């Protein structure tokens, strides 16, 4: 089985720790991963802001980079959702504009093999206990795209519940959006910030040391508000928690 890592542009540039965590986690589970360097961005920032045509080269790029892989694993719920939900739409759009089926075919190849990390662990590898150790109190925020577009359900929770030393704290209003929303965060900054500070208040009420999600873009926003408010709560991507072992405790 050939597994490719789609690290995503945000993780590549700003959160390489998360990418490294995915590699060490999968290797610990006996999966050899591969990082095709032709990959870049899934195109979500452009697509969601209305620039569908600008995303087309990135759809092609993604499909070509992972052409020979059986699985593509990504530590981002929203990028996985972008591929799964929107690549076929981009293909259909090009067809409707009379530009042939090439993009649709690229999408059709990419969609079935793309998995968000927790989906890959639970559904493909069939594990919920990844042998991790993380001696902290953690609250889990289910990101909107993971929750509603991918339908991750309780997969992330099941993985977290099996982590040794980890105590999970319930988050009030967990299913409510944190207010990031890509360019929404700068196009509607007041509402975005109001949503962010409500989310952070809920996080603070849990008393957890760590807030965890399946997406670093949401964590960038939540963490940005927490830091500005001087909160001691640390934002940590789920991959980094699952990659933790007794030897690597920070």
């Amino acid at each position, binding site marked *: 089985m050939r597994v490719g890592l789609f*690290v995503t*542009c945000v*993780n*590549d*540039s*700003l*959160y*390489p*720790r998360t*990418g*490294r965590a995915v590699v060490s986690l999968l290797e610990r589970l006996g999966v050899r991963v591969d*990082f095709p*360097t*032709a*990959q*870049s*961005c899934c*195109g979500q*920032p452009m*697509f*969601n*802001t*209305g*620039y*569908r045509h*600008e995303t087309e*080269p*990135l759809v092609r*790029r993604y499909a070509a980079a992972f052409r020979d892989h059986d699985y593509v694993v990504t530590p981002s719920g929203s990028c996985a959702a972008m591929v799964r939900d929107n690549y076929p739409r981009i293909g259909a759009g090009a067809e409707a504009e009379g530009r042939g089926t090439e993009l649709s075919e690229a999408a059709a190849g990419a969609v079935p093999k793309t998995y968000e990390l927790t989906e890959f662990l639970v559904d493909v590898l069939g594990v919920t206990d990844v042998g991790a150790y993380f001696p902290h109190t953690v609250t889990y925020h289910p990101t*909107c*795209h993971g929750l*509603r*577009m991918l339908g991750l359900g309780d997969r992330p929770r099941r993985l977290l519940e099996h982590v040794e030393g980890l105590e999970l704290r319930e988050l009030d209003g967990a*299913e*409510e*959006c944190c*207010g990031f*929303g*890509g360019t*929404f*965060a*700068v*196009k*509607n*900054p*007041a*509402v*975005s*910030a*109001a*949503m*962010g*500070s409500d989310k952070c208040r809920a996080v603070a009420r849990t008393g957890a040391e760590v807030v965890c999600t399946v997406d670093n873009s949401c964590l*960038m*926003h939540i*963490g*940005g*508000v927490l*830091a*500005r408010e001087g909160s001691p709560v640390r934002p940590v991507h789920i991959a980094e928690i699952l990659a933790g072992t007794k030897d690597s405790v920070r």
Partner: protein
Amino acid sequence: MSRDGTGVPHSGGAAYLGMPAFPRAAETATRDDRLRANLRHATHTIRAKRARAVAELDDWARLRQAGAAIKDRTLRHLDHHLVRLEEAVTRAGGTVHWAADAAEANRIVTDLVRATGEREVVKVKSMATQEIGLNEALAEAGIRAYETDLAELIVQLGDDLPSHILVPAIHRNRGEIRDIFRDRMASWGRPAPEGLTDRPAELAEAARRHLREKFLRAKVGLSGANFMVAETGTLVVVESEGNGRMCLTLPETLISVVGIEKTVPTWRDLEVFLQLLPRSSTAERMNPYTSMWTGTADGDGPRVFHLVLLDNGRTDTLADEVGRQALRCIRCSACLNVCPVYERAGGHAYGSPYPGPIGAILTPQLRGLASPLEESLPYASSLCGACFEVCPVAIDIPEVLVHLRERVVEGGEVTIRGTRTTIKPAKRHTAERAAMRAARWTFDHPGALRRGQWILSRSRRLRPRRLPGPGRAWTDTRELPAVPAESFRDWWARTRGGTA
């Protein structure tokens, strides 16, 4: 409150015109602590109740699919169903009028009321008449329209605008309502009783007495409708207070203004919606007052019935393959009650009687991308998808939002008043378009991407607390993330020996 030459007070649907774009209006609302508290309390209460009411049915998902399918099927052949509807209404003694836009609908209704010689009408709560600004048009003609729904009454007396589909005065709390009743009822009819408190029972009693006079006196009733059954020409109004029943049965003349998309072909289709609507909207298993009438009947209810079928941008919306799903909407307001943006921005920021997620996709389609307000509405969402999840007719609101964003920034083919036209990209997005293009180019050239990352990591120690220009929108309330010394790509190349 403004007064025109006739001395008729009117609250202004016209006030929606020229409203600022969403982000600015929303920002003002986020600073209003009382508004946010009122909205939070109200929406969270209805939200939880809806979830319980929906969870009671194990076939909810199938009902929802059926609702969407019936609407889609009907919309595909809407011309046919409308003709059947017209025939049935006419057969049953009603008169059907067709209105292409708001001005035409207002003219038709004004003329019909004038012809009765009456100067007062009672109104059932109706979204369509708010959409066209009927009250204001009537006021211009010297005709007073009395809102009889409790929340609409509060809005009207307060010279205010509705901010929610189901609960138009959701932004008001009990104390504010008491003040409005005490100060304003007298200029509209029976004054509020002495010593009125903010107890809900007292407030409801004051409204009841104030309205009762009007019901008993009115010779003309105005309504919208939730559904129109084409096979029999039957109109259906779904309400909770009984005021609608009064308006629909007591007056001699009844005029209903209804959007053409409210048509359902048969009673069997109606059955699906009478299950979907109350659970989604008021979280009730069954709706309290469901009034249905078919034309006129001797000695029972109004003797004259007019139906004004309203287009006002609906046919244009229907021409858009992605956007047309917005016409499935049954105005339950479930999407408003779960929307985190609506909860913080309030309904007025959406600049139309249709607030929240549905307003963000409906207003720019009905009105066209006519002004900065309409252009800003498709962006009034974080695309969290909570609206789609609860919508009883499965409108994929995020999909339509993104589709409309594309219309804003790329322009493209639209239908305006029945004519296919190509619209230009909105001007204010020029800088953004250049940035998106540059980003795409960089992402499509991994060598350039790597150089960009290298520059970013070299300047990591600069990490400013406040960015200038558009970046300020981020750093005003949030820290920037720390930039790592090495990108993932570089780490991979260094440790795994791959070539990047």
